[in-house]
């Protein structure tokens, strides 16, 4: 089943906690990420950068590799006086890109989330678990998904994904 590929990526990632509805925060985040603040559960992407909605008071800003530390500092400067927390978390997470026609099934074999296209539309971020560890993923376009997990279990997660690919499609969403 060579139709699915799993590739490790190393984007910059900034954790931003704060009142996601406040103008100051939205503007600061957008300026750093080059994309508008997403709606609930959504990913807002613009090329290599973007913002993921993680919870009512948490967003994850995606940046090119090596840009996160500087971006976190820039955010905190812009948000001087506004209660928030901005931290470079690039090294705390591992990111995988999964490409191929039945990637929804690759994920459905590992996550209890409903991967049906109606239940998980494009660009909706699903925080869930993958087998025995926490993970989040979103499908950017049919045939391409990204997945985030903790760094310490990256080998485990990569093994899960590869095994799921090896065992072939289920025929659920085909």
């Amino acid at each position, binding site marked *: 089943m060579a139709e699915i590929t799993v590739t490790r990526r190393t984007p910059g990632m900034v954790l931003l906690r704060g009142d996601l509805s406040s103008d100051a925060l939205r503007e600061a985040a957008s300026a750093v990420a080059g994309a508008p603040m997403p709606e609930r559960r959504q990913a807002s992407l613009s090329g290599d950068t973007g913002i993921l909605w993680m919870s009512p008071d948490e967003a994850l800003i995606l940046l090119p590799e090596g840009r996160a530390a500087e971006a976190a500092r820039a955010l905190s400067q812009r948000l001087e006086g506004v209660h928030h927390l901005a931290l470079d978390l690039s090294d705390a997470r591992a990111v995988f890109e999964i490409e191929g026609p039945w990637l929804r099934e690759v994920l459905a074999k590992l996550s209890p989330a409903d991967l049906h296209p109606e239940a998980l539309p494009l660009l909706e971020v699903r925080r869930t678990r993958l087998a025995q560890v926490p993970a989040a993923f979103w499908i950017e376009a049919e045939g391409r998904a990204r997945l985030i997990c903790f760094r310490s279990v990256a080998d485990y997660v990569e093994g899960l994904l590869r095994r799921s690919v090896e*065992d072939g499609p289920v025929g659920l969403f085909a």
Partner: protein
Amino acid sequence: MSRRLETGGLFIDRNAPMGFTFDGKDRGGFGGDTLASALLACGQLVMGRSFKYHRQRGPVSCGAEEPNALVGLGEGGLFEPNARATITPLTEGLRAISQNRWPSLAFDIGAVNAKLSKFLPAGFYYKTFLWPRAFWKHVYEPAIRRSAGLGKPPSQPDADRYEQVNTAADVLIAGGGVAGLAAAMEAGRNGARVILMEQGPRWGGRALIDAPLTGETIDGQPAADWIEMAVDTLETMPNVTMRLHTQVSGVFDHGFALAEERCADAGPAPVRARLWRIRARRIVTAQGAIERPLAFAGNDVPGVMLAGAVRDYAVGYGVAVGERVVVVTAGDDGYRTAIALVEAGLAVPALLDVRRGATGPLVERAQALGIRIEEGRGIAHVSGGQSVTGVSICAQDGPGEVIEEIACDAVAMSGGWSPAVHLWSQAGGKLTWDEGAAMFRPDHARPPTGADGSGFVLPAGGSDGAASTEDALRSGAEAGRLAAEGGVPADLAPPQAAPMPQVWVMPRDAGLALREKMWLDFQNDVKVSDVELAAREGYRSVEHAKRYTTLGMATDQGKLSNIGGLATLGHALGEAIPQVGTTTFRPPWTPIILGSIAGSATGAQFQPVRRTPMQDWHDANGADYEPVGQWRRPYSYPREGEDREAAAQRETRAVREAVGLLDASTLGKIVVKGPDAGRFMDMIYTNMMSNLAVGRCRYGLICNDSGFLMDDGVVARLSEDTWLCHTTTGGAEHIHAHMEEWLQTEWWDWQVYTANLTEQFAQVVVAGPQARKLLDRLGGMDVSREAMPFMSWAEGSLHGFDARVFRISFSGEVSYEVSVRASEGAELWQALLEEGEDLGVTPYGTEAMHILRAEKGYVMIGEESDGTITPQDLNLGWAVSKKKADFIGKRGLTRSHLADPERPRLVGLRSLDGTVIEAGAQVVGPGVTPTGQNATEGRVTSSYHSPTFGHGIAMALIRRGPERLGETVEVTRIGGGRQKAVLVDPVLYDAKGDRLNG
């Protein structure tokens, strides 16, 4: 003798011969056969032996309810015990072996004849073998275990692959017969997301065989045509997923269901089986019904089968189970079998109908075919041992006086049908007794309920008591429509059931001699007389009687025996069947492969193992690991000729004498920030944290609200509004959760954010007299005593790494913790090793860390604390603020028991002979307990051999310990004996702190 018929067999492909072996002998069958049908076609009627008496057993059914025909499949890592031959598809090269026999299926030395079986009555396990007592363990139990038992467990790990898949559905339909197909079409047309699953290899259920026998049509079409149309229609619906070879095995709370797909049964597949985890809004159960055996003497002789099975083998597989088949029936169903057999060219010497005056199209057709029908008759007993040789017939209403003996080589029995209510019942659906139809059926008013309190299971077709194809169609369609709309079973009209006389023993007034030969549970050898005995001995509850007799406890979970057993129990107790009730239906519907439950969680995926940024180096340098949470931390790094303990001793000395490196990346690192962070920190920690100066560190304790110690660690103040909390390795996640819980539930209006940064950083402890020199060599930061005093931290560029350096110590030596980005951790580690080579730099593991801290008297969460220990117990009262108005645990600590001066408190302990005291040993106290045991007054919490002092050192929690320094106590030893030890100050090493501050 059973054989293949010259023609016929809807399911088999006579152009696809297949070879297989049974007990090593080469056999042949056809594509479409099951293992059971192929064996019958070869004349192999006996397929196994029963559990208790080792009696020869042939298949009694043709489906999932089979209790007898259990075999072992495959070999080595592919071996599977207890497979049902009746639902095992025949595949080329299949290797099957019979079970529970020795030396052979035909001759088994464990077989128990009828006379001896009197000594093995119900409950014999509980009654016999009680004396002499020691014999149970050493003689009786091993002997019973050898002789009783079915398949052998596989001797090798399962070589097959399995996987799981999660999905959701609006409507899950269990069973692909007429009702299931009709439900799927209705739900599918409604636009619902539908999953339709059928355990067998084909769609259509019983209709394929039964409808043509009476010329029944479905929706005006021949059954086969309608089924084909339905399947074609469903396949065009993108919202419908269909699976054959897939049993819905369990229905759980709130619409969760498990199903097992036997992928390899359909042909070569990457995984042998796939476990589906389905979250369904509505579940339609359309699994049909299970035919009931009749209880007559000798009903377990091979060749006595369910009537439905006899005609399935004949019509479906072209297999005659015998040349002359006597049919005995309580309802109409036996007629179907008689008709099918005569049409297949076989002889039916008699059809015994327990009823009188039965009428209807089936009866008329049987009469038209010239079948001899005997009304009001039953079987007194079956003749034959290894197979049937004849039956003696009698009046059903009587004691069983033989009227006539009829030679035959098979018997087809039908005691009526029980709806398969298993899935309905598993999650709490209740049953109601239908007296006229003599069946338990789903009570639509009391369904299993979902999260919203409404019933989420809708029964359909035979599972709901439907007797005719027409009714199954109607009931399936109605259930499918309702399910798609999110309707409830209360809105679903139960289908019409066929009237059925209640025939629980045959003949009605059979004496004990006959009842002792009437089997209820074929696999576990439970007879009518056993259940009656249980009732006489006081087992009035059906659940107790079940366990006492083992009725229904075999691998078929009583699918055939349940109703007969509880009817017999009711009769013996003088109670009606609904008063007796049923036993509990539990998942799975039929056994599923353990491998599919494990799924892909095998090998490296068995359990997640967390890896630090330096783990590759540890792997490559011989680290001997110990599990710490989901991490694997190096215990020590043994060198050539060293064991792990010797290595830890060497590593400890290296830290005391030179410099050591510890991978501390696993320590929790939680950032707390915000305008209210200071007061939040003061609530979380027992000591004051709000007044910690920026640039400084402080050791702190966290208690739960009961006042018990949860965690400890060093807090660094990063800036005016930001603190960094170090936690223990195991505490990172739950301390973060603890903080968030208090923030979100109690202090939701405080302006504080937290984040768990544990994995963002690699952290290395650099400890020992040469530590400062080593960091100086790395260069870039001033780590001098003046610039960086004990309990301070600084940020800078160390050797080109963006680093935070904490001057903290858990060893008693000059010590720094260097924190860099996780992705740079391996490089930092390497740089420290290279720069420190001539300084004697030595990586050390958790055991050396433990020895170092114990020499210094530092406590360890999880060693000295166990969830019942207060800070004061560990002499850490100095870290519990007396000034603060409140903190989590403050009130708890004031409770009388926690403030009791008699509580065990921390002391050091040194054995008088210098040996290492056993960790966990009890400290023996004066006197005895009320139960006459030695009193204890404490326990050893940590114990090591100290290379620094050259003798054993230990820490212990002892009653009023610190007040008793110098006193000698006795501690226990595993295996007996005691050891004397003296109470000492736990701080053995550098009590003044010269080295730490050096």
